[in-house]
């Protein structure tokens, strides 16, 4: 957070924008959140939105079918640009998938109360983003049906995966991340599922939620072990979330391709991930609180804090960009120097400048509280930053490959229709899942909100 502003827990700020609007009781928060799932009728808006998202998801299915029928040649990739949109999208989605766990885990460890009302759907978003990301490493291979070679199983060939390859690290990192995020999310859900079970009015709902709640009854014994496990998970997820994008960055930094082979990648990839992650959380939170009038729970305070996180991580990313150049020229490696100049003058320069505009210049507005507290600005900015982060991956993956060591093999890359349709398709998948989630599960952690009520009431007392 920037200088000149009082610290978060200073009373006046609290009065300005509390984490939870006053006047709420255990019952009221529970009613409000549970009702979205249990009693609220399906709205036209929801149907329209879901319909659109679903049809985009179908576009994804068609694209994948065509891809399997014809081969990865339907994309724009070639020699030398062996990786194109598929990997760009993969890294982008994984990056977005970082906010959720980060919010739940790190902010939990830092005991930041404002995390409470956003962690649930942030985690959900993480899972969906990872699901989208997970598609790409599989389908970008030439023979997806052979992808099981990447898993260590006792084959009749007596062969094992090649553990020196960052791609194998990816397999483990992404699957671990997916699993742990899922566990974390589910553990958090259990008490709320119990709530839904108890408040459900129809037998089917009772049974479904009852099954999922595993018979949770909120006994002190449960809570004790529960909290211990939850804390441990948070402690485990924190290094994990940092490691995952580091591993992703190894895909590049471990190679020898100029523009990839640089030590700055792990930290700046992680920062970038958090950056895009929070941007995506905002992109979702702002419409969500509007649609289900949750302004009381997701207050301006949350939005502002997220804006501050974006500003901070955005600056780290900017530092990363700068340092890429610094390293190139400081090392004097002629290939790196050449690539650096390529970014500024080469045929793809416009992409690079667009990236600077989106990721470095625009976010500087966030220095001003006016901007941080202006919902519309925040929403637009979150979209801009998401675009910017996508461009960053494009610049790293594609531009570096277009002109590496042998001038005779230099080439260029142009995405095809199928590149785009696959990308847009995953957006459809992501949004569809979000829509289903909002309707089916409590978008905000009820039990934690009750805790918050307890705390705030103490404070008021």
């Amino acid at each position, binding site marked *: 957070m920037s200088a000149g502003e009082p610290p978060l827990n200073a009373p006046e700020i609290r009065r300005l924008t509390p984490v939870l609007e006053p006047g709420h009781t255990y019952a009221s928060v529970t009613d409000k959140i549970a009702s979205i799932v249990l009693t609220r009728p399906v709205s036209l808006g929801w149907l329209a939105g879901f319909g659109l998202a679903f049809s985009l998801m179908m576009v994804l299915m068609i694209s994948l079918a065509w891809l399997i029928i014809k*081969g990865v040649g339907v994309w724009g990739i070639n020699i030398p640009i*062996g990786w194109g949109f598929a990997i760009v999208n993969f890294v982008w989605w994984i990056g977005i998938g970082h906010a959720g766990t980060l919010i739940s885990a790190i902010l939990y460890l830092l005991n930041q109360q404002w995390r409470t009302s956003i962690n649930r759907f942030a985690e959900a978003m993480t899972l969906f983003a990872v699901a989208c990301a997970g598609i790409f490493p599989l389908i970008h291979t030439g023979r997806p049906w052979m992808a099981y070679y990447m898993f260590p199983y006792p084959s009749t060939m007596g062969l094992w995966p090649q553990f020196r390859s960052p791609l194998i690290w990816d397999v483990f990192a992404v699957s671990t991340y997916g699993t742990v995020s899922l566990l974390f999310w589910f553990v958090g859900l259990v008490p709320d599922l119990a709530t839904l079970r108890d408040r459900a009015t129809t037998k089917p709902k009772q049974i479904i939620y009852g099954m999922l709640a595993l018979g949770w009854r909120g006994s002190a014994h449960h809570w004790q072990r529960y909290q211990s496990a939850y804390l441990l998970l948070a402690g485990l997820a924190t290094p994990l979330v940092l490691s995952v994008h580091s591993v992703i960055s190894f895909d590049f930094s471990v190679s020898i391709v100029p523009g990839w082979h640089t030590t700055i990648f792990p930290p700046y990839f992680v920062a970038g991930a958090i950056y895009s992650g929070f941007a995506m959380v905002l992109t979702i939170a702002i419409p969500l609180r509007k649609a289900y009038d949750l302004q009381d729970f997701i207050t301006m305070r949350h939005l502002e804090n997220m804006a501050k996180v974006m500003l901070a991580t955005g600056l780290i990313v900017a530092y990363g960009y700068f340092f890429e150049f610094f390293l190139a020229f400081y090392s004097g490696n002629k290939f790196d120097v050449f690539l650096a100049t390529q970014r500024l003058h080469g045929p793809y320069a416009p992409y690079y400048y667009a990236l600077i505009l989106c990721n470095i210049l625009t976010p500087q507005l966030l220095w001003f509280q006016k901007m941080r507290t202006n919902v519309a600005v925040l929403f637009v900015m979150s979209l801009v930053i998401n675009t910017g982060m996508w461009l960053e991956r494009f610049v790293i993956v594609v531009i570096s490959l277009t002109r590496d060591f042998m001038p005779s093999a230099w*080439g260029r890359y142009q995405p095809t229709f199928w590149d785009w349709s696959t990308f847009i398709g995953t957006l459809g998948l992501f949004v569809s899942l979000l829509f289903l989630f909002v309707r089916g599960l409590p978008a905000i952690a009820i039990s934690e909100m009750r805790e918050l009520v307890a705390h705030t009431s103490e404070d008021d007392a």
Partner: protein
Amino acid sequence: MDGMSEDGHLHDDNHDEAHADDLTTQAYPLDLAAVRRKLQDKSGKQYWRTLEELAEDPHFEDLLHREFPRQASEWDESVDRRDFLKLMGASLALAGMAGCGRPDVEKIVPYVKQPDGMVLGKPLFFATVMPFGADALGLLVESHEGRPTKIEGNPDHPSSMGSTDVFAQAAVLNLYDPDRAQTVTNLGEIQSWSSFLQAAQGFAAGAKATNGAGFRLLTGTITSPTLIKQIQDLLKLYPQAKWHQWEPAGSDGAREGAKLAFGRYLNTVYAPGKADVVLSLDSDLFGAGPGHIRYTKEFTRRRKLTGPDSTMNRLYVVEPTPSVTGATADHRLPLRASEVGIFARALAAKLGLGGNASAPAGSEKWLEAVAKDLQQHRGASLVVAGEQQPAEVHALAHAINAALGNTGATVYQTEPVEGNPVNHLDSIRELCGDMDAGKVDLLLMLGGNPIYDAPHDLDFKSKLKKVRNAIRVSPYFDETSEYCQWHVAESHFLESWSDARAFDGTASIVQPLIAPLYRTHSAHDVVAAFSDKQGVSGYDVVRNYWSSAPGHSMASVDQGWKKWLNDGLIEGTKFAPVSAAPKFSAASLAPVQATPAGQIEFIFRPDPAVFDGRFANNGWLQELPKPVTKLTWDNAALVSPKTAEKLGLTQHVASRGGEHGQILSNVIDVWLSGSKVTAAAWILPGQAEDTVVLPLGYGRKRAGYTGTNKGFDAYAVRVSSALWTATGGEIKKTGANYPLACTQYHFNMEGRQILSSASLEEYRKNPNFANEGAEAPAPGLSLYKGEAEFPYHGNKWAMAIDLNHCNGCSACVVACQSENNIPVVGKDQVMRGREMHWIRVDRYYANTPSATSGTGPGDTTKYDVSLDNPDTFFQPVPCQQCENAPCEQVCPVAATVHSAEGLNDMVYNRCIGTRYCSNNCPYKVRRFNFLRFQDWETPQLKLMRNPEVTVRSRGVMEKCTYCVQRITAGRIEAEKQNRPIKDGEIVTACEAACPSEAIVFGNANDPNSRVSKLRAQQRNYSILAELNARPRTTYLAAVRNLNPELEKA
């Protein structure tokens, strides 16, 4: 290599009608033989009726299928099914091309009677020759279970000396080309051979009546003694008949030049190996033309550097457009075609041969130096005139060589190799005249394609229409065939018996390796059909000729035959030199003017890939990046950067594919000699100013699936008055752009340690120049201290490529494609940067300034003088087989790993296609099957494949393996005999093909191996050594032997 014992066995038999008949009859109750008999005595229309009569028959459909060549089932019929099973069963089933999953029941189909000498799984090699123009290339053809699969050079043959060129390498694809004409047709309808024979007899009788007055014969250049004899006998039979010849890319200049100089047609043979100084007057001595492979070998052997103290010959080239010869030159001077003649006159004058011509502007100094150099090397110098140059330039060359005392030393004359040498232009002109006058009622055309390639103004097509009966023998049903009553599908030279003479007169027997795949026949059969010895087999014709040939007898043939086939040549047939002093003085030449400066000069050149158009349907050649331009699938009008600037022509890189893929070029209308052709312009550094090259051989209208409508047809503006050089044309920009598939547009090394070169002096001063400027990390400089874990004890395979030898001819590329079952991907995929060649030949211009915008000459914003005449270098790049292979480390499934002999193994069936290895390959030598590029359907192509190499399918990475199949074969043989592998025992496909002996493969652990010796040289360096990938493929820096008196412009 001893396989001729079954010559009669392999071929000849099992291809007569009766055979095919009895197959169909046993398959179907319907008596097809009877039907055929019925059909044969009917002409076209009734033919149909007869079929309709048959239509009630239940098997009519099948019959129809078998009778029409365009039908699906036709192929099985034309090679009869049993042959097919024999061929496929034994080898294909074992070649591991089947799919995966639960293995289903398969059949093994053994021979009934196995040919002697054949061992399943062991290839046999047969010696034969490939007739080509006025030359014949000696070959050893590899045959798997009776399928010719790979072509190598015959070391014992004078014209090949063990090497080949792109055409020879690609010939095997022509053999299996599914688009080949497959049977005899009359007015487009299938006819049997016997019905053709009957027709021929009819024509013959008619011709006899008139003593053959209306009988004309049109052939290309023929060097087959047997065929020549057959034709001469034919002409005796029909005294009034005439034999015309037309070779579109042949050299009347050379013929008439000899006449001019010596008073008669003579054949000129060079010995570059004996020359210290060579001057080429627009001659692509090493790129094309008779003997070019031998000349390349002899020449480059004189450039072998073993150390700073070794000596080199020197090559001067004067040429209008860059050729591989020009690229090899120590000094190259771009002059317009017309100025080359002037230059020759000036040189003659300077050497005191009379005349007072002065050198073309700007070349005086050059001329000075060259003349001096030549004089200093009297008797050890050589002047060669280009095939496309007019007679007087050749005459001058003869005179100069004589004056320099080179005749007999570095050059000599022999009797013509071709039968009945004539001036082709006059010959075809006369023929057209006769046809126009209606004097021709029977025209027999052996090969060629005059409607496509005869001079435009002669309008061969309309005149051919006036011929009552035109009979065509040709491997393809092409533009000309459409206007011929009869078309006889011609057999491939690997399918039929014949003979041919090489550039120096050496004669060889052409022996077939496989029974004709289709119902094809050789020119011998057809000529015989019109003679009094109809129906005699090619085998007998050839044997008969030789038993009656001068110096031979029945007996000598009988006992010599096996040896001839075995050696691939008939000893003692080489022509003796004839002592001919040029009785010609330069002074006698009428003075000429060069085309005035500023006026565009159009010149025609045969295309380096499809030649005069005969290879247009060959995918390997179409996709072969042309040596200098690196264009594929198209020809383009070549212009110099300066001229381009003047005409406002540009080209730019399309973002799809980019520099190594798709280039958008301006389209121009070329108005020349009254007709127009629309072409894409290509800006070519090193081209003479105000010169536009129109490459021949493209724009075919009917070439087949691969070759039709590719590029533009330069013949459309080529007229008899200006066969090679035309002026007075004009160029109009259409404003349109045309996408060209160019595999390497960026020509600049960006100051990187990629291709090292120096002048001889520099090299002597600093022998280690190649390794300076690149700091190669010391061994063991690694995070891991584990490198010692992999010492390479046994064999340590390595390849050394001497850039001082490579002239970019690209034979290695096609050889590799043929050896390793590499698919053809087509223009669109090449434009996307997805071509599959395992070895590529990079072309760099050394003295050009850095163009980091990454673009080629086309859009250098400012015209750059160094592009007028850049130093051109070629660098073949196969997989570098790095010891610290970056590709291996990043493969998630260990599909590419290192072998104990240092090979970078690529395991296709383990590869899942992440393409990470390719990204991480600094040399970008890996190729990926982005789509299903391999043709799995066409049965002919299956026959062509090398059973020793996995056929890759979609989604798999592939790359050069140093021909691991050859290594394995060699190792197994050696191990069976419990001995180490001898140096040179294992030869990679590229090495075997290379005419300039630039590529050397061997065991780096054997200090005496050729490769070790090369690696020991100081010139030896590895590309981008600072990356510490430790390539096993290393390069020896190029050295140019500069004339101190000519410091480079």
